[in-house]
């Protein structure tokens, strides 16, 4: 696989959220407004790149039997650093993200990439793979958060875009979009869109319905 493919494939063709349906929990929780989603994206990209590089560096000297423990330890230390940096430099966003920064440890994308890619590839490709998957995750997060903030509050990053009816404009905010459940609908629509655009991603139905028999009666 060429290096270009390693970076670009996770954007659409092998997106961790829309194709592999990983990391959905945080995509539901932190996408009410755009700013926390952006910060979360940067955090995940940083952790993914770091985890992939460090696992790739020690992949030859790591005993197979305890590799998961080592991987999780590496990821957890990176997440703690990210959490502390956020608390120091962006305390408000850190409060909004609350436990979800800590939960990057359990984000399946991170452990999934270290296990499936960094364990068997050199440092350079591993770094690119981490960044690529992080960006793939971020694209989904930013899309979902933009939809939710725009439709739910009429603003983007806090700047009013659609004039609210309450302030004499025309737009009545859709409060469903401010509830976590709406992220399910937005992600579902996004997956629908991506799979219409790339039909190769459509899964084969597991339980197809047999066609009904018809008899002309007229």
């Amino acid at each position: 696989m060429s290096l270009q493919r390693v970076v670009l494939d996770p954007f659409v063709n092998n997106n961790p959220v829309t194709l592999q349906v990983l990391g959905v929990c945080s995509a539901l929780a932190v996408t009410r407004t755009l700013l926390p989603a952006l910060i979360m994206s940067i955090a995940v990209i940083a952790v993914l790149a770091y985890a992939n590089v460090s696992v790739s560096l020690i992949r030859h000297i790591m005993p197979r039997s305890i590799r998961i423990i080592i991987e999780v330890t590496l990821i957890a230390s990176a997440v703690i650093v990210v959490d502390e940096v956020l608390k120091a430099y962006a305390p408000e966003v850190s409060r909004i993200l609350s436990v979800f920064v800590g939960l990057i440890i359990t984000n399946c994308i991170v452990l999934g990439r270290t296990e499936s890619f960094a364990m068997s590839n050199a440092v350079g490709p591993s770094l690119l793979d981490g960044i690529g998957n992080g960006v793939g995750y971020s694209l989904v997060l930013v899309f979902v958060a933009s939809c939710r903030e725009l439709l739910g509050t009429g603003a983007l990053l806090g700047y009013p875009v659609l004039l609210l009816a309450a302030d004499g404009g025309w737009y009545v905010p859709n409060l469903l979009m401010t509830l976590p459940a709406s992220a399910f609908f937005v992600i579902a629509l996004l997956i629908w869109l991506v799979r219409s655009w790339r039909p190769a991603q459509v899964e084969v139905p597991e339980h197809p319905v047999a066609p009904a028999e018809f008899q002309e009666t007229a």
Partner: protein
Amino acid sequence: MAAGDEVRWQGASTRTRRWARPAAQLAATALYSSPHNTASAPHVRDAANVQRLFFYFVAATFPAVLIGLWNQGLQIGQGLAESGLTKLPGWRGVVLAGMGWDPLTAGAVWNLLVGLVYFLPLLAVALAAGLLWEVLFATLLRRAPQSGVLMSSWLYVLLLPANMPLLFAALGISFGLVFGKHVFGGGGKYIASPALLGVLFLYFSYPAQMGDGAGLPVPGVESRTILALLADGGIERIAQNGVAWLDVFVGRQPGALGTTSALACAAGALFLVLVRAASARILAGALLGLIIGNWLAAASGASTSAPWYWHASLGSFAFGVAFIATDPVAASVTRAGRWIYGLLIGLLVVLIRTADPAHPDGTLFSILLASLFAPLIDYGAVRAQLYRRQRRRRALRA
């Protein structure tokens, strides 16, 4: 699913023909039914196809619509008197004034007309949006359009308040049909009533407009449902406000367009049972669940406890149980399953009304929850039946 739905159009060669065909098919089958009737094994061969079954549900609501719209006119007139205004806002107010409506001298026929002026545009918008999605999905999936749009849109509009903006009404039914029906593969495959999902979408998206479904198009008048009174101060509060049970039972109470009359809903339910469109077990189960739940709530000293016949005629309970919970697709299908499904709805209604002060009327939530459990309930009922049969066989052999 309407008979003949699975017939795929062959040779749709040009783009126009591809788009025009489902629309033409839809227009044609609106008046007469499709020549394709299922004749294979598990189905009853009968003239009553799915299209007719769905129409029974529309026809069964006619009494509820009549009384509901009359009541809506009455409530609007009272709201106007309360606010001191002389005419209604918006283009509907202009239309009514042009027709010569005078809220002070209006009688029953005028009340019905006022209700119609609010009901018909909502219905037209909901139907147009529903048909648009049906034709769109039929075209993209290259299949014939399915019946059920009229039923979904009709029941949906009856659950809306009179002051619902037309744009929101279109959004709600679009959500209900796309996310409630088409993503699951269309008619016959959905897991909860699309009309119900559309209303709940509005409930969460636009709570100011949707509210309890009792909003009146009179500025400055806050119309509170009797359930809200009950949540406030129990049955004594209702008595203080001078509301008589018989009035409420017949349909004189603030509420959504078609849901206020428990009497008319009961008549509609009876019709549905007689034509075998709805299951009497679901209806009886829901009423029994309400009575048991209410007895439990009263025994535990809940402040919202009221005689069960009050609870049965308040909010959208009667309408929801009669026409939404009996949805032929989303409800349970086994005998025991239908009892459990009905009981679950009745019990949940009382539970939400008693324990959740934020939602005075829990009917729609209860039906949604019970619909989601319907396949599990059916699974359990079938397993229990298989177990009993096995035990009988073993007893015979021994």
